């Protein structure tokens, strides 16, 4: 019985301790990694901008859609439908 209690207590102390140690190390290493990435391999600004564009543009896709896009979409849809 006492054994069970001490086991439970140990599990709690070491378990929580370990979780914190592990996640602290993860916070630190993630921080280091992010810094290194942004220093040595920064996301190309232009590319990031375009990458973010579609999401923003999506709602207005209909308005800005020129004929080319319409054709492309329809072709794709037809193919999808017929396949």
């Amino acid at each position, binding site marked *: 019985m006492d054994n*069970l209690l001490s086991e*439970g207590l140990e599990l709690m102390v070491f378990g929580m301790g370990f*979780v914190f140690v592990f996640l602290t190390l993860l916070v630190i290493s993630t921080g280091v990694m*992010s810094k290194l990435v942004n220093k040595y391999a920064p996301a190309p600004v232009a590319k990031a901008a375009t990458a973010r564009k579609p999401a923003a543009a999506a709602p207005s896709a209909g308005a800005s859609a020129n004929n080319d896009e319409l054709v492309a979409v329809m072709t794709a849809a037809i193919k999808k439908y017929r396949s």
Partner: protein
Amino acid sequence: MDKLLDLWVASGIYNISPGQALMMAIGLVLLFLAIRKNFEPLLLVPIGFGGILANIPEAGLAFSAVENAIHFAKPEVLAGLASALGVDSADPHAVLDAYKTASHSAHTAATDVALDSGYNNGMLYNFYSVAIASGAAPLIIFMGVGAMTDFGPLLANPKTLFLGAAAQFGIFATVLGAVALSMTGVMDFSIQDAAAIGIIGGADGPTAIYVASLLAPHLLGAIAVAAYSYMALVPMIQPPIMRALTTESERKIKMHQLRHVSKTEKILFPILLLILVALLLPDAAPLLGMFCFGNLMRECGVVDRLSDTAQNALINIVTIFLGLSVGSKLSADKFLDLETLGILVLGVIAFGIGTACGVLMAKLMNKMQGGDAINPLIGSAGVSAVPMAARVSNKIGLEANPQNFLLMHAMGPNVAGVIGSAVAAGVMIKFVG
């Protein structure tokens, strides 16, 4: 007329036990909660249905061939089983007890006898063996969850990992609670049982099932049902605790907009996490390894068809069989027990303590930093229950300040909670497994 009598004697009505009837009713209640109340239906529909199937009298769907042979108790078969298992008595109960504790070679011998006598494994028993006893299903689902997880918000604000750490206190407090119940003689949980029960507080279905299948398979049904039910109840369990522990002004804290996280960071994160697991806690490697693998497939951008399958066809297939398999553990003799009540009570306490610790940790972090960087409402999301807990944080935040959208901020601790409870699972498997 013999045949008519046979049919009647073999029918469910003739054979149904009160326990089976009650368990079938519980299965129906789970279906009701899943379908009408939207309680984690993806799991609770298969679990509930599997529970009903498992309790169909005489069908033996959740039994192994040997258990089926013992159930029908033909003397010559029992004698064969007794000899294979090395017991003197051919009494069904004695044979069954021997079977449950048999060595693997005796187990194989008994199975051969049962199969030779024409008994077969039930369908759900086979599903359970392949899906859960092998450990495969929870791991494959965790891979799919990894492939669905966006670590962007976490990477933008890595300190929220501490919130995910704090919320795991619910797990370990519950272990102590289970130990206390045992010590006071109310129930009889081993330390393994206590650990498996505690993991309910991790608010992560696959993790809970994986740990329970390793540490306490006999409690798996109750643990899985409790885990998924409480996850569905997060919008009811968490808000009062969150309100009680925060002031109006704390709830109004606006957080900085999250920075943009680059593709490279997202690719490197699962690898970093994997290496940390490899170096520090190998026992968490299956769970977190598959999780990181799924996430890497998602983020690397070159295996989209694999990522897509992991998130759809594969996870759906495995979910169906996982659910039915969990349901197979909802048999009357295992579920209708005081222990199940204990598990349900401890589970809700675990959720509550986890929620509270997450919120308090956020407040502590604000104190230590001497600023108002973190709205404590996102701390509760650290229990995981993705994405429900994050939505709850957002909702309570909006009540305090209709312009304050906390959802993305809460996603950080939310996914951190997944990592945290997998780490906690690894510690438990290491220490009591």
